[in-house]
């Protein structure tokens, strides 16, 4: 099978993009490593507090002119950005594969999802409209106008280096705000490429800034009085105890999307072949490194007697293990590969420690992904194959904590009620899915389950750009969500005008 050409030939030296200039950082420089080949593809700075402060200053200076730029003109910048992204679609996708590790099809999907957010935000002349009502009292009219706020900070995660900042950035600038993006320092190349295209698309200097780095940049954003709000996607401890808390203290708006432990239910009347196929993408897509990944598969025995349930359980487990065994693992630029490496060695070690914990706590290991078998001759440093545990319970570590890797835990529940109780016993509330042929059960599931994104015969409940990316409980901190009209509301203030003319 073909191994596609790598789009980066020489090691890139990434810079910050501040005020329309590519600026060297005075901070420490760290390597960006392709997790499949273990080769360095770029070097990225860990920017200083002065550098993030400078970015906030120039963004603040750009804001007055940008907010006065007509929405149609702002939208045209986004149209040009979209056209450039389409032109460079393949290059952008391959960059994601080499900087993150995901397969090329997964990268192309991520590119498409990112572009879709640019497309939706380009509809800002309609999306940003207010509303009005005549004659609220004698000769008096009232209306709402939506106004931008200023400068926003966007903190990206490592697992979707291209797409996730685009859940927010296009809406922020379309509504007339200015932004500073801090990409993950593990895979910052995609955001550097977007900044190149944004510059070519004609966004004025200072509107869209990129500052690379780590905690110093994040705390610089959180502490800065001129940052109006923060968009964050990452782990629950950081989202809850750092981002949400600090934004509360400083009065900033916040969208903090956090961790997950997603449950998938298989009912006895499910179409098993389609369910298992959907589960493979759900549990092992992106090597399990996404907040919508399946984590726990509950085989539900609603309406079955003991004997029937045991037979159904075995059938599901065997089909799941058979399918997981056949997933081809290797370098994501190999087109025959279906699962790439973990993002780095420490993440592999973390996942491995969960597997060990699962064995120690008595779960039954049906497929051991620690036995690495690859397509192609690549260093095993970051690779794992799919792992499957069965007879997992909610008190086991692997049953309750987010693993963020290619590990499936299969659980038992005798009824839908018991399965929903199991879901609710977990503190996360990002996504949950049911596989069934029953509209009644599906409706009940949708109605009762306390998760932000519900799937009915869907393995990965990824909301499209024109819907909010939801989340509940320990998976989301904030009020409004990213994407679509909720993002437009997040990035604007609703100003009410009541007028009368004498």
């Amino acid at each position, binding site marked *: 099978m073909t191994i596609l050409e790598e789009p980066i030939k020489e090691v890139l030296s990434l810079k910050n993009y501040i005020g329309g200039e590519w600026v060297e950082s005075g901070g420490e420089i760290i390597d960006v490593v392709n997790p499949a080949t273990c080769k360095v593809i770029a070097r990225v700075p860990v920017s200083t507090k002065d550098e993030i402060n400078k970015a906030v200053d120039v963004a603040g200076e750009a804001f007055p002119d940008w907010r006065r730029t007509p929405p149609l003109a702002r939208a045209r910048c986004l149209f040009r950005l979209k056209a450039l992204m389409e032109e460079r679609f393949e290059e952008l996708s391959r960059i994601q594969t080499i900087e993150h590790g995901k397969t090329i099809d997964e990268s192309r999907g991520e590119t498409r999802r990112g572009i879709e957010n640019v497309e939706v935000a380009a509809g800002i002349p309609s999306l940003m409209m207010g509303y009005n009502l005549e004659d609220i009292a004698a000769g008096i009219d009232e209306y709402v106008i939506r106004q931008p706020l200023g400068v926003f900070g966007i903190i990206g995660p490592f697992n979707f280096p291209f797409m996730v900042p685009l859940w927010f950035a296009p809406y922020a600038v379309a509504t007339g705000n200015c932004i500073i993006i801090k990409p993950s320092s593990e895979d910052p190349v995609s955001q550097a490429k977007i900044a190149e295209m944004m510059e070519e698309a004609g966004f004025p200097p200072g509107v869209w800034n990129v500052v690379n780095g780590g905690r110093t940049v994040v705390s610089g954003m959180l502490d800065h009085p001129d940052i109006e709000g923060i968009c964050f996607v990452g782990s629950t401890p950081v989202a809850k105890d750092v981002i949400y808390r600090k934004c509360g203290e400083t009065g900033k708006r916040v969208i903090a999307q956090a961790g997950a432990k997603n449950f998938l239910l298989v009912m006895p009347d499910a179409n098993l072949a389609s369910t298992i*196929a959907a589960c493979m993408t759900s549990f092992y897509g992106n090597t399990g490194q996404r907040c919508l990944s399946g984590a726990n598969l509950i085989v539900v025995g609603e309406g079955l007697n003991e004997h029937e349930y045991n037979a159904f359980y075995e059938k599901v487990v065997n089909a799941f293990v058979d399918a997981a065994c056949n997933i081809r693992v290797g370098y994501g630029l190999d087109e025959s590969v279906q699962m790439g490496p973990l993002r780095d060695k420490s993440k592999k070690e973390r996942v491995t420690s969960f597997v060990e914990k699962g064995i120690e706590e008595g779960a039954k290991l049906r497929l051991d992904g620690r036995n690495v078998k690859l397509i192609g001759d690549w260093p095993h440093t970051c690779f794992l194959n799919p792992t499957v545990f069965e007879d997992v319970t909610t008190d086991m570590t692997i049953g309750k904590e987010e693993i963020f890797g290619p590990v499936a835990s299969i659980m038992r529940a005798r009824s839908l009620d018991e399965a929903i109780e199991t879901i609710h016993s977990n503190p996360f509330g990002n996504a949950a899915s049911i596989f069934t042929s029953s509209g009644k059960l599906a409706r009940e599931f949708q109605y009762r389950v306390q998760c932000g994104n519900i799937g009915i015969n869907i393995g990965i409940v*990824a909301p499209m750009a024109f819907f909010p990316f939801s989340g509940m409980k320990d998976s989301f901190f904030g009020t409004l969500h990213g994407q679509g009209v909720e993002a437009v509301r997040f990035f604007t203030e609703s100003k009410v005008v009541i007028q009368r003319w004498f």
Partner: protein
Amino acid sequence: MEEPKATASAIINFSEKLEDDSSNFYEKLAEKFLEMKSVFLAFAEESKKNKVLVTRTYRETITDALEACFSFEGLKLSNYVVKTILTEDTSYSDALRTAIELEDKASKFYLDVAELSKSLLATIPSTFRKVAERRNSRKQVLKSLLEKAMAKH
């Protein structure tokens, strides 16, 4: 040796190569057999358009393919490969026979992938079917050219 799984990426890569090779082949035929130049150049041009159409459809719908956990199960790409080698000695009728075989396999390839992808967004199988129809139409034209050529002999 067992053929690896046909992922969406592999299918599109195969389609792109098929259309590139077809385009090159017909451009060479146009140079070699000047009396049918316009027909062969039209085929070459159509292959370029086919490539654009398939690639665009794939890129615009890749998320659907992914979230449905899609792979083209059981498809063996080696079944659709045709060697399109032209030499100095290749006669007009032999070139037409090669072209007919190429169109036959290409048409079958697109129909097979359309069938295997029918559970996805309608634009995906309909694009494959559309290209299959175009390739089948070419086959009919080529067959009639071959019949005329044979009748002259």
